[in-house]
């Protein structure tokens, strides 16, 4: 029987299925961070049980960390305690930790792939909804709650019902200045913030195959923003080339064996999906959001819909029917697990070279990991940013979620390459406009929402 990519991976990870209930799904890799793990460690200790497979867990500190002066103690007490608790828990339970100061530290969804921990055919979980990012390598990867983190720590398994399957086909050539971020913002705007709830999504089509691994990760990362449990892309030569040689990638004969298996990971020709969507890549403009969920987006030359949710428009201080282009911007945030990889930084640096940020605009570029930061410095990207007036900070989740020191002040407009524009997401009453790194860079230079295509 023909199988989808999802089914091929799912089926080989089912330990057993409960009658009238979920399946026991085996988990290959578990990423943890400081925010959603402490209660799970506590729960295990209360039950007096050990971690089942600590060597299958990788930990890092990212949500709470400051992005300036990381060598100093974290100023905010609760953040400091949470990060310290992670260090203590990892030591006590023998979990590999890439904490503050470690050359591998960074945003959990950036470091997994860059270290080669993330591999095709795996089941991967983390107490973070953007775990879907890892699906770019042809893995079943999804976010879980803390009780589930505890389950995986205790048994390396989860109880899961098989989701419905959706395939989104993006065919054709992207226009100038249009990036993978625009593809995913366009898809979410088309199907809404709840359009894929209950589904696991496979992205396919020539426009997806043409993307780099960084571009694919950006797309899979935001699957959750349309409600999908996860997103995935069949691994191909682009994926294999990316993985080969990385720290934890298979080596030697094991590489050959794994590669042969990975090459079987694709949806068979007659495989059945519960839903299928077709998108024309050429129709996608650089995208921007105007509202308070990621589905509220338009092309940068478009108008804010007159029918848009009034509550969202009031919060954003925007008017239905108005053009979004020309909207003044106070902050620019280039970072997050969506767009903080070396390719994102290169793209921005290429564009801003020889340009300067607009007066009155604060620009933060936050690399996704120590390795990205070091690579940027090796390539001289730090100098390009310094000359343009962009601040290159240290790795972390930063202004994506208003949890650490990096917050956008109330009422201010921030064009952000992150994944969520919810009310208060970047700080109480902060106003977020989601866009690609290129569109964010254009806003940094002009001080307003601009069409990148006019500059390149």
């Amino acid at each position: 029987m023909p199988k989808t990519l999802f089914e091929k991976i799912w089926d080989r990870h089912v330990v057993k299925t409960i009658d009238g209930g979920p399946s026991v799904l085996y988990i290959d890799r578990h990423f943890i961070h400081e925010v959603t793990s402490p209660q799970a460690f506590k729960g295990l200790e209360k039950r007096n049980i050990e971690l089942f497979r600590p060597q299958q867990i990788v930990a890092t500190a990212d949500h709470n960390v400051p992005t300036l002066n990381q060598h100093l103690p974290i100023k905010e007490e609760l953040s400091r305690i949470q990060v310290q608790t992670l260090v203590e828990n990892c030591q006590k339970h023998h979990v590999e930790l890439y904490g503050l100061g470690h050359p591998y530290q960074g945003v959990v969804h950036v470091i997994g792939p860059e270290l080669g921990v993330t591999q095709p055919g795996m089941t991967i979980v983390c107490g973070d909804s953007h775990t879907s990012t890892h699906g770019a390598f042809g893995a079943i990867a999804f976010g879980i709650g803390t009780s589930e983190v505890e389950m995986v720590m205790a048994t390396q398994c989860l109880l899961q019902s098989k989701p419905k399957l959706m395939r989104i086909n993006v065919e054709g050539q992207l226009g100038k200045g249009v990036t993978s971020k625009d593809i995913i913002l366009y898809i979410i705007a088309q199907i809404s913030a709840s359009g894929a709830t209950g589904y696991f999504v496979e992205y396919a089509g020539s426009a997806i195959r043409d993307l780099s691994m960084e571009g694919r990760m950006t797309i899979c990362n935001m699957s959750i923003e349309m409600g999908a449990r996860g997103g995935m892309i069949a691994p191909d030569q682009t994926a294999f080339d990316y993985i080969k040689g990385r720290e934890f990638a298979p080596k030697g004969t094991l590489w050959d064996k794994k590669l042969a298996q990975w090459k079987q990971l694709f949806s068979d020709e007659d495989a059945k999906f519960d839903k299928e969507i077709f998108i024309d890549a050429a129709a996608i403009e650089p995208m921007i959001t105007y509202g308070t969920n990621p589905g509220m987006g338009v092309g940068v030359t478009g108008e804010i819909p007159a029918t848009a949710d009034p509550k969202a428009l009031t919060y954003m201080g925007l008017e239905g029917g108005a053009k979004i282009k020309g909207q003044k911007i106070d902050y620019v945030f280039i970072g997050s697990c969506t767009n903080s990889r070396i390719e994102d930084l290169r793209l921005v640096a290429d564009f801003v070279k020889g340009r300067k940020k607009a007066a009155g605009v604060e620009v933060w570029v936050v690399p996704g990991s120590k390795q990205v930061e070091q690579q940027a410095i090796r390539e001289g990207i730090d100098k390009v940013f310094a000359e343009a007036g962009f601040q290159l900070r240290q790795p972390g989740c930063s202004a994506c979620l208003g949890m650490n020191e990096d917050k956008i002040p109330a009422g201010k407009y921030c064009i952000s390459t992150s994944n969520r524009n919810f009310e208060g997401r970047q700080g109480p009453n902060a106003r977020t406009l989601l866009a690609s790194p290129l569109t964010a860079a254009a806003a940094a230079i002009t001080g307003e929402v601009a069409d990148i295509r006019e500059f390149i």
Partner: protein
Amino acid sequence: MSKAISKIVSTAVPLDIANIDTDQIIPARFLKATSRDGFGDNLFRDWRYNSDNTKKDFVLNNPTYSGKILVAGKNFGCGSSREHAAWAIKDAGFDVVVSSFFADIFKNNALNNFLLPVTVSEDFLQQLFNAIEKDPKTIIGVDLEPQTIMANGRSEKFEINDYKKTCLLNGYDDIDFLLSIRGDIEDFEGLYATRY
């Protein structure tokens, strides 16, 4: 400690807003605790309080509405996977959330904390909002065994898988179950290692 649930008969708090994300339920800056307790104080923090901590005009600040049931608009609990959202709702005294649609991760998190997510039809949800608006003392009955929700003489059946239902009725959790089959899991690992 979580405990079994079967029947909840209560007035309800109406929250007629769609797409309520977990950043609204509990903003990230309140996720810094290392225990599961006390999150109820910051439930819907930025909708309940101004920046100077004075109260806003919001349904949870309105003494007219109270009860163990939260009735909310479509696509409740979308966004971040933070289980703190379910902890906060439970900690604030709710045992049931009713909506026409729940985000997947939130639904799992709620079930794992003995907070029952009840999915009803759009039509039934609208009737609930209307009934509560007309009479805030409207009593809603949720009965897990027959999987029914009743209000104003109308009832609707809701879905829940048999396994989870048994867990909720008996106060079992998934970890207990998974620990009981650790032998099967080890056997699986052995086989898996030879195949892949």
